[in-house]
């Protein structure tokens, strides 16, 4: 047996209140509790975080890069979802 038996965890850190957790990196740990502690030691040494999540890497389902187009192309095609799409007469405020 070797440390390969320590699974890989993805670490998400909330840098301060009001912000989302952001992916910071990964690490190995034998279980969730230790993963959380290792994440605290490794990714918040300089007070970078107020909250940490750890997720087993195997639990993440990702979109395939090969599906890039069908997955995301249609969203790129709807400019009317963005405020800059609309023309407003000069001088109209608070819109």
């Amino acid at each position: 047996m070797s440390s390969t038996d320590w699974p890989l965890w993805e670490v998400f850190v909330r840098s301060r209140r009001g912000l989302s957790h952001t992916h910071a990196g990964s690490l190995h740990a034998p279980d969730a509790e230790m993963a959380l502690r290792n994440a605290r030691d490794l990714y918040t040494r300089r007070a970078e975080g107020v909250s940490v999540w750890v997720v087993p890497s195997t639990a993440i389902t990702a979109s395939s890069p090969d599906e890039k187009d069908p997955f995301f192309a249609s969203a790129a095609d709807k400019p009317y979802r963005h405020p800059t799409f609309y023309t407003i007469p000069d001088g109209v405020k608070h819109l």
Partner: protein
Amino acid sequence: MATTVEAGGVREAAFDAAVAADERIEPRDWMPDAYRATLVRQIAQHAHSEIIGIQPEANWITRAPSLRRKAILMAKVQDEAGHGLYLYSAAETLGVGRDELLDKLHTGRQKYSSIFNYPTLTWADVGAIGWLVDGAAITNQVPLCRCSYGPYARAMVRICKEESFHQRQGYELLLALSQGTEAQHAMAQDAVDRWWWPSLMMFGPPDDESSHSAQSMAWKIKRHSNDELRQRFVDICVPQAEALGLTLPDPDLVWNEERGHHDFGPIDWDEFREVLRGNGPCNDERIGRRRRAHEDGAWVREAAAAYAAKHGEAKA
């Protein structure tokens, strides 16, 4: 068959276009096998360097001459373990496990930076490592923050940010010695004399002999040539050495008005190759100690894995 070849061609074209457009390649993107292999080799070597690099400095943690310096050195050495971890993580996104990489390190199939095969004989060596070795590393690493492979580039951003204190603490340490007693000044000069040339070797062989450089530059894994970075480093160090009141051990070091750079003397590449080949002053100790730590720790890693298996669902 024809469609597969065609699909491969399309993927390769997409990869080339992304690199050309300075976009980042991400783990699940298609990439040429050779690109992947080059990255694994380079990131692993980089990660190994961080963790082997712990040893020469850890050598002085217990003897640091003031409590302030002890705290600084502990924090720095801890960062190096952390940086090793960031880099192993980056390598793992390419599909190789940390264990596999460590095994290759322990059996000599992957390398680490030869600089760490030199001994730290005095306290001043801790300063010289911070100023010169970390300085050279930073010169190498800053361009890597824009490396074409996303996870590597992101790890480097984090590392460069954290390492900014490493070089400064080394410089400050040397300054205190240089301005201290005669014995302290001599200690500082001796350390700089010993670390200067090996630091210049850290940029790798001259461009015309560097085997991997051209392809790595085309892939934007590497952004500047070895000689270009080496020159940049020399130019940065000369005024810093003056401010320290220490000399750099190179009689040929002189400002060249025409080039706008410092000329410097020839590097002893025989020494470089010998150390690389395993004949440096500390090669065996460094690898031996690393392997021992790993072997001595096996029962701890096994215990934690066994506990997790027993209590798996308890509190996930």
